[in-house]
C-alpha cells in the first residue's frame, strides 16, 4: 500500500485526531502481522534469505514518531522499525520481495532484511553498525538546516548503540550546531544478550540529553500516544530551529536478537511482564473505551491487513530471483544507478 503524506503546518500541538488514531492502529497491526509472517512462517519455511530481525513489542515507537513527519523530512529507521518504512510509503510487496531476495525488491535481490531506503521517500537505509547512523543523520540534518525549509530528521537506534563513540560525537555535534535531529533511542533492554545494567550506569538514558545541552525525555515506548506526544514536542522544536532532542522510549524486545536466537538469557518472567504491556491491545482498549472505534471496525482492519499481506507474499513468491549476470549492476553509480532515481 502507498500513502501520500501531506505537508502540515510546522507547529502542531494537538493530539492525533480520530482518523489518525485509526491509522496508528492500522500501522501497529500491519507491522505486527507482517513481521509475524516473516519470522514465524516464511523464515521457518526457508523462504527468507538471511536472518529475520523484528520489532515485536516495539511497534509503537516507529508508529508514534514517523506518522508525524511531513514531506521533505527524513527518517533513519533501525532494523526494528518496520512501521517507519510502511508509513513512509514503502509497499508490502517491496518489503517482502526484499526479504526474499527477489529481483523486484528495492535492492533487486542484492541486500536482504530492511536494508532498504529511498531518497524520494526520505528513508535512509539501515547502517548495520548502528552507531554510525547518527553522524550520518547529523549530515542530513545539516543539509536540511541549510536548505531552510523546516524539515527534520528522525533517527532510531537501540540502547546498545548509545555506548558507541560515534553516538557521542554525533549528539555533541548536533547540539553545538543546533541541528534539526530527533534522536530516538528504542531502549528494548537487551543489546543482543547484554542487559542494560551492563550497558550503562544511569537509570534513564535521557540523562544523556542535558549532558550534551539538549532536552532529554524518557517515555513508555509501549504507549503509542506517549511516544506521539513526546515526538511531537521534539519535532516541533527541531522545525523551529531550536536544535536536537533526545527521546528514550523504554520497551522490550519480545523476541531474540533475531529469529535464530532463542534468547534463553532473558528471564522468562520479563517476557510475561512485558506481554501485559503490549502496545497494540493498549491502543485498542483506549480507542474502544473512548468510543473512537468500534470492535467491528477493528475486525475489518485485521481482515484487510491479512489480505494485503497474503497478496504481497504471493506476489513476492511468484516474483523471480535476480539473474546472475545482473549482479554487478548498481554497484557503481552510472546509468544503472536505480537506487538514486527510485
Amino acid at each position, binding site marked *: 500500500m502507498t500513502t501520500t503524506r501531506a505537508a502540515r503546518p510546522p507547529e502542531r500541538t494537538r493530539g492525533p485526531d480520530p482518523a489518525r488514531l485509526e491509522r496508528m492502529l492500522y500501522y501497529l497491526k500491519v507491522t505486527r502481522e507482517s513481521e509475524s509472517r516473516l519470522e514465524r512462517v516464511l523464515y521457518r519455511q526457508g523462504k527468507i534469505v538471511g536472518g529475520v530481525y523484528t520489532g515485536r513489542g516495539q511497534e509503537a515507537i516507529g508508529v508514534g514518531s514517523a506518522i508525524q513527519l511531513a514531506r521533505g523530512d527524513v527518517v533513519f529507521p533501525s532494523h526494528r522499525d518496520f512501521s517507519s518504512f510502511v508509513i513512509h510509503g514503502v509497499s508490502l510487496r517491496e518489503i517482502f520481495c526484499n526479504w526474499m531476495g527477489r529481483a523486484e525488491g528495492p535492492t533487486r535481490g542484492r541486500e536482504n532484511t530492511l536494508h532498504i531506503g529511498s531518497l524520494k521517500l526520505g528513508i535512509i537505509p539501515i547502517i548495520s553498525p548502528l552507531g554510525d547512523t547518527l553522524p550520518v543523520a547529523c549530515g542530513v540534518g545539516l543539509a536540511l538546516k541549510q536548505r531552510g525549509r523546516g524539515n527534520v530528521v528522525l533517527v532510531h537506534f537501540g540502547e546498545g548503540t548509545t*555506548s*558507541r*563513540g*560515534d*553516538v*557521542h*560525537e554525533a549528539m*555533541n*555535534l548536533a*547540539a*553545538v550546531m*543546533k541541528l534539526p535531529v530527533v534522536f530516538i533511542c528504542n531502549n528494548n533492554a537487551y543489546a543482543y544478550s547484554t542487559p542494560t*545494567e*551492563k*550497558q*550503562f*550506569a*544511569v*537509570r534513564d538514558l535521557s*540523562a*544523556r540529553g*542535558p*549532558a*550534551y*545541552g*539538549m532536552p532529554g525525555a524518557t517515555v513508555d515506548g509501549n504507549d503509542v500516544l506517549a511516544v506521539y506526544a513526546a515526538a511531537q514536542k521534539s519535532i516541533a522544536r527541531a522545525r523551529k530551529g531550536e*536544535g536536537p532532542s533526545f527521546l528514550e522510549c523504554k520497551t522490550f524486545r519480545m523476541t531474540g536478537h533475531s529469529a535464530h536466537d532463542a534468547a534463553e538469557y532473558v528471564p522468562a518472567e520479563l517476557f510475561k511482564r512485558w506481554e501485559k504491556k503490549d502496545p497494540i491491545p493498549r491502543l485498542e482498549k483506549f480507542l474502544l473505551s473512548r468510543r473512537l472505534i468500534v470492535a467491528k471496525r477493528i475486525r475489518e482492519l485485521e481482515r484487510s491487513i491479512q489480505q494485503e499481506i497474503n497478496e504481497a507474499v504471493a506476489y513476492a513468491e511468484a516474483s523471480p530471483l535476480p539473474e546472475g549476470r545482473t549482479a554487478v549492476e548498481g554497484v557503481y553509480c552510472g546509468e544503472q544507478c536505480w537506487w538514486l532515481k527510485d
Partner: protein
Amino acid sequence: MRNLTRSQYHDLYYYLRLNRRVDEQLVNLYRQGKVVGGVYSSLGQEAISVGTAYALEPQDVISPLIRNVGAMMVRGFRPRDIFLQYMGRQDGPTGGRDANTHFGDLQRGVLAPISMLGETIPVMAGVALAGKMRGEKRVALAYVGDGATSTGPFHEGLNFAAVLKLPLLVIAENNGWAYSTPTEKQMAVPDIAERAPGYGIPAVRVDGNDVLRVYESTRAALERLRGGAGPVLLECKTMRMKGHAEHDDARYVPKEVFDKWRKKDPIVRFEKLLRDRRLMTVEEKTEIEGRIEREIREDVDFAESSLFPPPEGAARPVWESGAEGA
C-alpha cells in the same frame, strides 16, 4: 582531608615554579633551534598538573598530556629527562627516538602520552580494571583536554568505567581552546562536568588556577575511588596562556581573554597565599628558587652535552623487549 605540612606547601611551590622554569627553558632552546619538533607549553596550567599529581600515592598511575610536564616531575622525572627528550638526545627517556613528553615509566606510574587524546580514557580504564582485578588500591588518573571530550573514545572509555565502577579519575583540563576551537564550538554545555550525569558518575568543578583547590578536590575524589564507588570527573577550569605550540601565535584568541587570565596566574596566586598565611619566608622562597635555577642550569648543560643517538641503533628498541632506551 589531611592538612598539608609547611614543607608540603613548599613542595607544591617548588613544583609549580619548576614547571614554569622548565617551560621557559624549553622555549629558549626552541628559539635557539635546539629542540627537535615542537614545544607545547603548560604556561598557566601548572596548578592542575602539580595539584593533582601531588595528591596521588606511589602505586597510582597517570597518563599525562603534553601539557602535564609538572605532573611528570611530581612523579619523579627530572628536568634533565625532559630537556634530553625535547632535544632528541641518546640519554633521554626514549633514547632520542621520540620527542617532547612522549615518554613514560611504569615504575613511576607514568604512561606515555597518547597523541589522540581521547584514546587515553579507554586505556586508563584498562589500567584501572587491572588494578581492581588484582585487588590493588590503585587509581588510574587520566588527563584530557576540552577537545578530547568530544571524541568517541572518551565516551566509550568513561561509560565502560562507570558500568564496571572502575577507580578512574578523569581530570578534564578545560583550557578554553582545542587548538583554535573555543569551547562554545566544542560543546553546547557550559561545563564539561555536565557530561557526568549522562554516565551516572559524579563531577566536581574546580578553579584550575588554584593549586590548593585542585589538590583538595583530587584528594576527595581519590577517597571515593579507593572506596570502590566508581569513576569521578574532575573539571579544572583554566586557560592556555600560549598558542597550541610555540609555532602558533594564537592570534585567534581575543587579547582580553589573555589579559583576564593573566591576573589569575596560578603561581602568583599561590605565592600570595603562602605569604598571607605566613607559610613561606622570603629566605625560604629564595632558597627554593635558587635550587630550581641550579637544577635547570645543570640539566640544560647536561642535555646539551649529551650525544644524539647513533643511527645504527635506531631500529633496536623497536622490537626487542627490554632493549636499552625502550
